[in-house]
């Protein structure tokens, strides 16, 4: 009768931060994996070009392919020195199979190759460094203000706090460089109000830099809510059109700095590894393409005991069917979980889904003020028009409603399914 006896514990309405200590110390380095898997695409239909063949020797930092087409072709680099094992489709953490280059290490450790000196500082240099920014939006005067989300919404990640605490000068330098390159005059960095230390670190690194404004927000902002944040912050009362904002992932800013100052390609990044399958959460600097399996092993996790591996956060991440997926440039962290009693047969009656008792905990937590219980009820009855009228598409998939629901209704899942239904059958909904 697990879950039957009452507890006097006050249940948390927001997830407790499980990565607390991870950003207070420098990240550990894990730069010598035995093999890396470097995806050449983001989606299976994206165009790409591969410049290497199997059994070819490559050096770290060598350009092995190009992603995209037209004027914004992004370079893909080898991240370790070694021999190309194969060029094949391979699972990527986004849940798709994409063309990838598998490189096996030959035991040689050498500093990565630099970007050729003839490339001038400009968007071209960033493309050659392989930094996946939103180039069409950034260049050509489509952006008035750059925004950087320095808060960490996910309880198990600590990359943004780490970067602000340990590498604030590189973040600020990267942001200033980016503004110079794309001639953008303003930018702001959002920091959680509950972490004043990060704001101090940021302000100290800013120094006399007046173009970058640090902003405090009441609560961490989920990545999906950034567009709403920009709209809310930048709205004008006098009716003039608001400035156009573009968000940049904070993890790319040190890479921008390194590409311009040291001409280094973007081949390594900081990720947070945490979860019940890891002895203690920590930040690791890894080479792009390192398989999750190797990272978890390195951090002390026992792969035999793991029951779930998640790319990203505990609230919005993507569950992985395979531990052999690589860390990509966009991967913020890995959550390795050992959970007992996950299947329905192992659960006590108290943890099974029950009726909604309208306790309003989901409504109180929802960051966009919709009624998740009501909308989920409509979606279950296939009343999609009513659900849409009540704000189904305002949902930003933050997952907090499922986190707090005492009836254990998978609210976030129901809402996500209904939203994807609209994409699949646009004519059915709203008729």
């Amino acid at each position: 009768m697990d879950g039957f006896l009452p507890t006097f514990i006050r249940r948390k309405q927001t997830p407790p931060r499980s990565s607390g200590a991870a950003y207070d110390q420098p990240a550990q380095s894990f730069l010598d994996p035995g093999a890396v898997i470097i995806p050449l695409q983001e989606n299976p239909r994206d165009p790409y070009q591969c410049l290497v063949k199997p059994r070819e020797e490559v050096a770290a930092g060598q350009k092995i392919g190009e992603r995209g087409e037209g004027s914004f072709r992004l370079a893909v680099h080898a991240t370790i020195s070694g021999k190309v094992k194969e060029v094949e489709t391979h699972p990527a953490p986004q849940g798709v199979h994409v063309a990838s280059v598998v490189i096996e290490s030959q035991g040689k450790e050498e500093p990565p190759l630099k970007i050729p000196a003839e490339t001038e500082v400009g968007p071209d240099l960033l493309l050659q460094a392989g930094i996946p920014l939103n180039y069409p939006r950034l260049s050509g005067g489509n952006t008035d203000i750059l925004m950087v989300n320095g808060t960490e919404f996910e309880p198990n990640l600590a990359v943004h706090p780490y970067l602000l605490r340990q590498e604030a000068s590189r973040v600020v330098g990267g942001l200033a460089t980016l503004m110079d390159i794309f001639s953008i005059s303003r930018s702001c960095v959002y920091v959680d109000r509950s972490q004043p230390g990060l704001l101090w670190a940021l302000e100290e690194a800013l120094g006399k830099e007046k173009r970058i404004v640090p902003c405090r927000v009441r609560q961490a902002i989920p990545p999906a809510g950034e567009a709403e944040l920009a709209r809310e912050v930048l709205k004008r009362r006098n009716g003039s059109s608001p400035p156009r904002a573009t968000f940049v992932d904070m993890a790319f800013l040190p890479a921008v700095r390194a590409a311009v100052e040291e001409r280094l390609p973007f081949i390594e990044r900081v990720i947070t590894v945490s979860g019940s399958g890891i002895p203690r959460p920590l930040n690791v600097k890894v080479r792009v393409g390192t398989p999750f399996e190797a990272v978890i092993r390195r951090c002390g996790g026992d792969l035999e005991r793991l029951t779930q591996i998640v790319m990203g956060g505990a609230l919005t991440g993507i569950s992985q069917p395979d531990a052999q997926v690589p860390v990509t440039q966009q991967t913020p962290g890995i959550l390795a979980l050992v959970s007992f009693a996950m299947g329905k047969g192992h659960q006590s009656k108290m943890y099974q889904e029950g009726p909604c008792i309208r306790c309003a905990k989901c409504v109180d937590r929802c960051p966009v003020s919709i009624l998740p219980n009501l909308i989920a009820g409509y979606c279950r009855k296939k009343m999609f028009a009513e659900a849409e009228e009540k704000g189904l598409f305002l949902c930003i998939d933050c997952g907090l409603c499922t986190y707090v629901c005492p009836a254990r209704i998978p609210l976030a899942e129901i809402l996500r399914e209904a939203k994807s239904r609209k994409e699949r059958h646009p004519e059915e909904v709203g008729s």
Partner: protein
Amino acid sequence: MPNPLIVSGPPYIKNGETNHCLMFDVYIAAVPVMLAAVFFAGPYAIVVIALSILSAMATEAIIQMIKTPGYRFRPVVYNILTSDRITILDGSALVTGILVAFNVPPQVPFWLPVVGSAVAISLGKQIFGGLGHNIFNPALFARTFLLAAWPAHMTSWVAPFDWGSYLGRLSWFPSTWKIQAVDAVSSATPLTLMKNEGVLTPYLNLFLGNTGGCIGETCALAVLLGGAYMLYKGTITWHIPFTYLTTVAILTGLFGKDPVFHLFSGGLMLGAFFMATDVVTSPVTKWGRIWFGVGCGVITVLIRLFGSFPEGVSYSILIMNACTPLIDRYTGGARLRLQVVGNLRTP
């Protein structure tokens, strides 16, 4: 990999709360009220509460057994523990039973709480589809039912129990355990005294519960303790109790009555913390809860000061329960507003 990895949709963590925990929080919050009830209403209150709980749980089990197609009655106990269809262990019937017992006078015949709880569960809750679907608070539904069916029993008030004389003659013989007419001195509630004779009961008696009244409503101190526990655990939010009590205090003050007397007399405290905050029958939006509390307060004051009944808490909450879907509709509009933003310096 020896064991296959589980693939599921986010989120991957939960805060561990269950419906059962929420219901048990109400039960724990009701413990001080029950202790006060036994102290002021005498040992017979234990019998009333126990019978009421048993009746509520039995009614729920029987109705759910009948509703389950092909239910096998023989291994009843086993089925109650394991069946998905029989949910008496989720604690909602327990809480309803307790609240029904809180709403009857101390010296009622023993069958009255039994009938009341059965009506609360069957006609108040299960007929609408069970937990989460009822329109009206089941306990208040039962109270109004009993008040209409047996008004004499439901309005025969007694003075607080005289433990001194009862313990003095208590011995090992069960015949002496019986409560005699000497113990149950007929008396009126503070609100009736106020309405009919204009007598003001001392504040301390009202606060501690040393007055006539229903089993659970006399002791404001115990109700406040329970309410504080529920507020701490997050089972209820401050919106409904705060606006309800504030509205009553302000309106009674405006009409020239004594706000403190009206706050602590009658079932207002019990209603504000245990009845109006019933999650199923109150609005889900924050502003909806605030309007709900204000509406309850206005109707309570109108009934108390201008109606023919001395007490109006139960009717006010039932009327506002009926308004809950309407309140939800007009306060729960989809608003494109990110609540997380605040304290910004716009660049």
